[in-house]
């Protein structure tokens, strides 16, 4: 096994992408993800890859579309306002059934917002962001090591299901350093990219990458086919981590950075005799609904913790069909909830049990 190294989240993501075979990175700087772009600028030329700083976010995402069409592993990254700009291109990539990886290291919004950590792009990531009927697989790491493993997964899942995958982080995860080990390669066996517009070598018919279908019945059929694939993703790829859920009466649920803070709160609540547990979705789409339904069996209430005004809370309520009360604790605009704030809210809820 390789040695542990101490790396920033943003840089770890870059190295993991290269290890996973990403050879095309199209970037545009924005805090708090700029170190990722910077890392790719340094590393890509050394390994025979392509780093290109585009003239805008819109250009960058369309370069990803081009590289992905040719069958290459391609990635772009940005932070919240930049992801909004990429929305159109992301929809085109989804509509063209192309594998690609998009990284969003979220900052406070709306608008230009701020530069501190945030989770207020949950709706954008999981419900659309671009136009049309489509989904992204959305992966939400909560440590630098998991940034590495989910970056490998992101490229594999994108290829496996021919769809764009988003890695949804935040300023805290992008900026923090933790020890990591880089795996050398993924274990998955992936289908050959017979659809890619690389070269026919005169041996086959031309491949065409397209998202324009003028005839509605044709477009509907293609959307149905795509949604059949989405159904398979929902069945096979939902992931979560449970912590002290077995007897939890109060299930705290959070993803990414806030799940780490929530874990501190769960430990403190347990010491005070409150049966708290943590349910952390690792995939935000597909949302791990079954885990919530299972947790609802012991839970008297749920508490979602987010760096937003409350977005994931809607999926939690839907997952359990509102069978239990779902409370909210969050900060917004780049403010980070403290374990103490979460504990206070949890104690208030538990008093009513």
């Amino acid at each position, binding site marked *: 096994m390789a040695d542990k190294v101490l790396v920033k989240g943003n840089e770890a993501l870059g190295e993991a992408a290269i290890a996973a075979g990403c050879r095309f990175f199209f970037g545009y700087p924005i*805090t*708090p993800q700029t170190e990722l772009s910077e890392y790719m600028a340094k590393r890509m030329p050394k390994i025979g890859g392509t780093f290109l700083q585009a003239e805008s976010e819109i250009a960058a995402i369309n370069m990803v579309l081009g590289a992905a069409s040719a069958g290459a592993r391609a990635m772009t990254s940005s932070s919240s306002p930049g992801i909004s700009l990429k929305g159109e291109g992301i929809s085109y990539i989804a509509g063209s059934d192309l594998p690609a990886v998009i990284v969003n290291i979220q900052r406070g919004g709306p608008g230009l917002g701020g530069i501190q950590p945030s989770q207020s792009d949950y709706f954008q990531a999981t419900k659309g962001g671009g136009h049309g009927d489509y989904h992204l697989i959305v992966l939400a790491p909560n440590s630098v090591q998991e940034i590495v493993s989910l970056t490998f997964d992101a490229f594999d899942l994108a290829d496996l299901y021919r769809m764009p995958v988003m890695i949804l982080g935040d300023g*805290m995860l992008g*900026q923090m*350093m*933790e020890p990591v080990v880089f795996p050398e390669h993924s274990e998955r066996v992936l289908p050959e990219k017979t659809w890619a517009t690389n070269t026919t070598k005169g041996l086959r018919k031309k491949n065409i990458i397209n998202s324009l279908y003028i005839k509605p019945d044709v477009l509907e059929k293609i959307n149905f086919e795509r949604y059949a694939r989405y159904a398979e993703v929902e069945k096979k790829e939902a992931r979560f981590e449970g912590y002290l859920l077995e007897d939890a009466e109060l299930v705290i649920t959070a993803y990414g950075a806030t799940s780490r*803070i929530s874990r501190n709160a769960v430990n403190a609540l347990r010491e005070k005799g409150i049966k708290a547990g943590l349910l952390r979705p690792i995939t935000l789409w597909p949302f791990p609904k079954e885990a919530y339904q299972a947790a609802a069996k012991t839970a008297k209430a749920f508490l979602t913790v987010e760096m937003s005004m409350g977005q994931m809370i809607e999926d939690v309520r839907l997952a359990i069909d509102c069978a239990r009360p779902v409370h909210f604790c969050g900060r917004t605009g780049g403010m*980070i909830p403290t374990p103490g704030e979460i504990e206070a809210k949890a104690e208030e809820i538990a008093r009513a049990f």
Partner: protein
Amino acid sequence: MAGRMLLAGFGGQGILFAGKLFTYAGMLEGKNVTNIPEYGPEMRGGTCNCSVIIDEEPIGSPLVLEPDILIAMNLPSLDRFEKTAAPGAKIFVDSTLIGRKVLRDDVEAFYIPATGLASDAGIPKLANVIIVGKVIRETGICSMEIMDKVLEKVVPPTRAHLIAPNKKALEIGYEFA
């Protein structure tokens, strides 16, 4: 021992470098570690700080809101963070740059004229590392022996000539009484 550490000072004083030394030391001694800098407008001039956690247990939030160990290398940092220190915390003050004493009586304060000592020893940029030596002496957060390996990791091979002055700075801090 485990520790929740906050290091703060001006940009350019090597706050992040000092934080990295502790983080590597914890990692090489087999502990769980996290390190997160404040990356706001502060890093573009002005004050600078970073949170370091070294723990036997898995680490939840990487942010240190109530440090057990506080390193203050300038007055604004001491003013801002003294009140946040946990009761019983150890506060390290660069007394060359900070004229006042620690006001709280439920913490332990250590005054070391690190900037002056660094200047006297001909290593004016290494006041940060002198404080690291003092912190190791007073807290046992990591061993002095591990620092040889840490410096090999942190100082790039092209700057290997900087390892010796860093070791000297560690020793000055460690021996300062």
